[in-house]
């Protein structure tokens, strides 16, 4: 059984800085594979640019398909970072320490990937620049600021900027550690990024204040981003299944659910890829597993309310839509898979401590949840659009094309490649937090048992 050893500072630096100061074969293989996956997106996108949006499966009335589903999915994944590093910091969950940076970087990459999707989806992405530059009313084309689609832009970019700041501020002490061990031009680069960090009392004090302030201030942004994304759908009255008041907290709960599950996947990969068994231990997976149970239950409550109140008013079109989602293939198959993978299988397995402490099991459960949550977004967006119009001759269907499948697949490559490159340049586990955790560790003897203590002041 793995236990927390007293790791010396030298060993800590060696373990956590190994990816930064060396190139392993494993790194090149991973980078190669992920680049190939990303290439799929590149090819799909290029083909779409050359041939037009007609190569996608989009058509009246289903104008939003795989790409918008993927956009919502990645915005959801981006909620992992703030959940782990901000909310758990403010609630003083000490077990979060090794995960925070990976979660925050996952947020950055997920947000960046999500932000690309509306641009790709426009079909002629240069026109999005054309509308917005040099100023947003160029050629008398004013963006409709009353539309949630425009609120999306400011929300996502605010979240991206604040998350970047959040990552950077937390990174400063570790940049100083890397600076002190680097040489040549890298020393200068890391030195510039470290902003003259010397680790004085005053610097640590300010660092602590800024970290707590950022953690608190980013929370409204965190809640608002996915709420605004949800209002892209909820504000619309013409599509069945969309106009529901519960969408905002439902989407946010779903985002936290998928985000935290994605962090579990990343944790397992970090442990296997870098050999960080001493830093990402079964107790971390246990703690995050318990968190997942609570989040999943909250999400399921919102899902149930959304479903029940969808049927509540007994409106014909809404009932027809739910009927299609539950009883008509392939939607019925998607719905069953969605419910099983997003909730029933993970929650029933996570109740067992043995499962929560099994890294392989947690890895697969994290993937399972994300499959379910991707399907959830798909089932919200596409069936409603397929039945949008009151005339049955205008009803449509949707079949994703190879270009869209390529773009969606490639997005996963982009996020993981981004994580890999980040880990190459910066320490992915916060070294200073690890040292702090060791300094603040303690033990007390109660009777015959020794129990670990944590700082409470």
């Amino acid at each position, binding site marked *: 059984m793995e236990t927390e050893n007293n790791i010396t500072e030298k060993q800590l630096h060696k373990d956590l800085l190994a990816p930064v100061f060396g190139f392993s074969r494993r790194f090149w293989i991973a980078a190669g594979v992920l680049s190939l996956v990303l290439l799929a997106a590149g090819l799909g996108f290029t083909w779409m640019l050359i041939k037009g949006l007609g190569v996608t499966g989009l058509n009246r009335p289903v104008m939003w398909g795989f790409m918008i589903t993927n956009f919502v999915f990645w915005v959801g994944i981006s909620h992992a970072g703030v959940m782990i590093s901000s909310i758990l910091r403010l609630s003083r969950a000490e077990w979060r320490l090794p995960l925070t940076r990976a979660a925050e970087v996952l947020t950055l990459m997920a947000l960046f990937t999500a932000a690309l999707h509306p641009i790709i989806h426009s079909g002629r992405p240069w026109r999005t620049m054309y509308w917005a530059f040099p100023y947003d009313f160029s050629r008398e084309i004013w963006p409709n600021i009353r539309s949630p689609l425009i609120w999306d832009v400011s929300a996502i970019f605010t979240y991206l900027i604040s998350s970047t700041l959040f990552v950077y501020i937390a990174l400063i002490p570790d940049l100083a550690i890397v600076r002190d061990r680097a040489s040549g031009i890298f020393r200068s680069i890391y030195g510039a990024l470290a902003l003259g960090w010397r680790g004085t009392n005053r610097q640590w004090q300010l660092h602590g204040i800024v970290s707590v302030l950022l953690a608190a201030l980013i929370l409204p942004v965190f809640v608002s981003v996915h709420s605004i994304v949800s209002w892209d759908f909820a504000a619309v009255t013409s599509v069945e299944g969309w106009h529901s008041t519960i969408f905002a907290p439902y989407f946010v709960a779903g985002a936290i659910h998928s985000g935290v599950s994605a962090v579990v996947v990343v944790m397992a990969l970090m442990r296997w890829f870098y050999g960080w068994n001493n830093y990402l231990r079964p107790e971390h997976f246990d703690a995050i597993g318990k968190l997942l149970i609570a989040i999943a239950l909250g999400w399921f409550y919102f899902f149930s309310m959304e479903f029940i109140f969808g049927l509540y008013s*007994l409106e014909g079109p809404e009932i027809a839509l739910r009927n299609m989602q539950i009883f008509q293939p392939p939607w019925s198959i998607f719905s069953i898979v969605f419910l099983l993978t997003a909730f029933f299988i993970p929650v029933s397995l996570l109740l067992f401590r043995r499962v929560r402490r099994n890294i392989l099991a947690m890895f697969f459960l994290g993937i399972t949840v994300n499959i379910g949550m991707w399907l959830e977004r798909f089932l919200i967006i596409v069936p409603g659009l397929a039945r949008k119009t009151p005339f049955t001759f205008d009803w449509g269907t949707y079949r994703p094309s190879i270009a869209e499948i390529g773009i969606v697949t490639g997005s996963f490559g982009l996020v993981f490649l981004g994580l890999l490159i980040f880990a190459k340049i910066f320490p992915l586990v916060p070294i200073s937090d690890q040292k702090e955790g060791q300094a603040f560790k303690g033990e*007390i003897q109660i009777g015959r048992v020794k129990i670990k203590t944590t700082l409470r002041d």
Partner: protein
Amino acid sequence: MPDNTTPAKTEYRSALAPTHIQPMNKAGKRFWLAVGLLAIVFSMGVAGFIWRWQSGWDDRPAWGYYAATFSFLLSTAQTAPLISAGLRLVAGPWRRPLARPAELFAFVGILNILWFIPLLKVVPDTQHRRSIWFDSPISFQIWETIALAVLISCGLCLLYMASMPDIAAKVGKAPGKQGFPVPLGLSWRGNPHQWRILKLGLVVLGAGYIIFLIFQQTIFASDFGLSLVPGWKDALFPAYHIVSSLQAGTALLTVSLFLLRQWGGLKDYIGLDTFKGLGRLLLVLTLLWFYFWWSSFIVLWYGRRPEEQLLLQLFVSGPIRPLFTLVLILNFVLPFLLLLWSPIRKSIAGPVIVSVFILSGTLLDRIRLFTTAFSVTESGEVIKTLPPTRVPDTADIFILMGGLAGMALTYLVATRLLPVLSYWEITQGKILESEKQIGLRKVKMVAKPE
């Protein structure tokens, strides 16, 4: 392996100075004066109910304030045990002094279920209105009653189970006196097996209480609010009711702890740490309150459907606007601005004052929601006209005051039946605390045996 973090019986007495137990041994003059006054106001409430009863069950608008009072009791007193159960699950150390005071509110459930029964006669059955029960063969009254009964039973079991070690240790009674009036029932010896069962039971009952409260609040908000107003389809309303209950329950707990501290002689047990924790929790819940209210409002407002605009007029912007504005100020604006300021949040008086605002705001909010819902007598698919706003008459005022007095009276009686603090948990907390020298400072460390 024996659980060495659970205190032996003898350790209770050594951990607690006798003077701290003394105030709970006998009821003083102040206690009996409070009981007397509350009993008088409660009997006014009973008189108000009898008066209302004479107007008949069919005059639904007349019962709006009665329903609002029940909703307020459900939202405050019955939500308070959830705060303790939830904090016990996440194991925050500052929660130990508030555990028992919160769980004692489960006693108010007994009053609540009696209060609830007449409401079942007032609300029409689901054949004539939309309902979340659809075509269920079991009537909604049965579902509601079962849900409330299970909730109250769960709360009382949780309270009793959590009190067992203290009852067994005869904490709070002078030496030589018999135990508390509540019979022990199960012979508690405090061996490791019993402690394990106790801890498991508290987790299971706590989780059960949370689930049942959410369920009960959801169906109550739907049956006695949403489904009385044709066309009111707001999937978020039950969740909003739950979140505002969490805010109000925390506020009630904060005020109760303050009163116990000031007049119960428990200053050494209920300290600044607890109020700091409650202040933080209140800030989070205040923000959540606004978020849930705004999420509902923006979708209804933005959609511009005529029936939804009329609903907004009914509950927000029509004749009810002054009341709604007051609710917004008391439940969000003032608490947010005050609790944002660290010196207020991290004090004792600050959270208490904010809690008084929140409780007042929640009462007005429940009046706004349920008197309005009860005043709609139209049937059909959507509401077509705004009903007149019901101003409270004498019977309504008696009912409101009687409900609040009944809650306080029941709680006071509960404090005489069981130890008012969870002494075993507080002692456990002291055992799990230690100090460590880091640099020039001595810092507090807390052990987590789980």
